[in-house]
């Protein structure tokens, strides 16, 4: 087992605890925006796709990378935008939208 893997596992385990801690504080009122918003965050694979798509040689991996960029960008842009649209609808009594 390499040291890099050990660090990755550390990060994974600690992130799980952070995740449980913060997600369990999200009220049911906001569970749909939570899903779409966190979904957008999982589009972080975009980072990996970008590297694959930009390698330069016109091989299979560049093509796969480009499709990956398309998929992940749909995920990211669609997710954040629709979450913003939804959260803009949540208003308190006075009718003012949340900031």
């Amino acid at each position, binding site marked *: 087992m390499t040291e890099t893997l050990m660090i*990755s596992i550390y990060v994974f385990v600690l992130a799980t605890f952070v*995740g449980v801690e*913060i997600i369990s504080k999200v009220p049911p*009122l906001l569970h749909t925006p939570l*899903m779409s918003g966190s979904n957008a965050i999982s589009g972080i694979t975009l980072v990996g796709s*970008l590297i694959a798509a930009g390698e330069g040689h016109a091989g299979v991996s560049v093509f796969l990378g480009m499709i990956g960029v398309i998929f992940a960008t749909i*995920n990211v842009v*669609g997710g954040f935008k629709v979450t913003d649209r939804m959260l803009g609808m949540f208003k308190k009594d006075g*009718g003012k939208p949340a900031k």
Partner: protein
Amino acid sequence: MNIALSIAYLVASVCFILGLKLLSSPTTARRGNIYGALGMLIAVIATLTDRQIVDFTYIIVGLIIGGGIGLLMAVRVEMTSMPQMVGLLNGFGGGASTLVAFAEYIRLSGSADLTVWQAGPINLDVLITLVFGLLIGTVTFTGSGVAFAKLQGIMKSAPVLFSFQKQLNLLILVASLILGGLFVVDPSQWYLLLIIIGLSAILGVTSVIPIGGADMPVVISLLNSYSGLAAAMTGFILSNNVLIIAGTLVGTSGIILTQIMCTAMNRSLANVLFAGVGADYEASEETAEQRTVIRYTPEDTAYMLENAQSVIIIPGYGLAVAQAQHILHEVTKLLMERGISVRYAIHPVAGRMPGHMNVLLAEANVPYDLLLEMDQINDDFQNTDISLIIGANDVVNPAARYKKSSPLYGMPILNADKARTVMVCKRSLNPGFAGEDNELFYDKKTMMVFGDAKATLTNLAHLLKK
């Protein structure tokens, strides 16, 4: 990885965590989402400065196409179609993970031609996570496709069952893992990965088709979790911490929501995934017992409501199907103008995904401080004059409290029956998804108003304006 890039990824990770943290209150949630988007922007810009990237053509093409499609979807989607949208996004996330994992394998192989193997020694852990990344990513991709098709009505939402289904799924999973093992032993065998992708694609389909429409909230949440896990796996393959952190956060979020949905339906995850509940739903429509109910007209209900002091509204998905949210809010406003206290009681499974009903009502301009969770409001029903049930059924069925033979038994329900008067606005006496007749409808203090929710409420609003 250079220092500047690492720091940028760290900042992005912090943005994601802060963003999710701000989702804990509706007053800060929108800002939280912007933090998340900002984190993503930082991560993307930092990545683009990476020296490995030498050609931007494909990147720009991909960003424009993907961004355009994503934006179009986000702007045009109806709030009732939110579950499909999230399902689709899960799928794209999973698909992207699969593509990245496979592209990374090709890069590692040292040659753009798959059949030529020029790689040096590859770490065992990269190979193992590669297999898992492909597996989870592809299952998420095709599973989400099926979930989308069911929710969108392209596929029938009833469970598709065939014999030895569970055994087949298990077989596919085991076969994929064995092939994965063979691949780890000899990573030049690229076709093994293609077979694994193919098998995972089948597994995604066969594991989602037996799940009925009513259980889709659970499936969507679970696939949300998978898409996060797939991203985390990609992080392991690339030794990239921001991917691991972001993916893991989403993975835990999906699991927590899955658990909440299961608890709210009083079902175990295994039961949701394998039992095929709802298979006989279509057939059971006419089985309601021939008992008498007292039918009332909107005039009767208007009179009762005008003379009440407190009303709790219980919206169900039937409300959204009838597109009656806006007119319901009209009725609410008319009642509140008369000094009557009106609140909404939201059951966790109201709607087609976690929190869905809140979004549908928020869209109809219902202020969110009127929307109360089950635990917040359940004790108040006994001091309430009227509980007004619109398009909901199973979530107010008292059989859940005591009838041990009922599929609903043990499910937490809203105490609608504790109010002094119960009003039910419903199309017919058909039982809900669980197929359990609702005795509340036959109670002496229950006023049944049959008809389309929108028509009834429009009528009611008209009467209350007088």
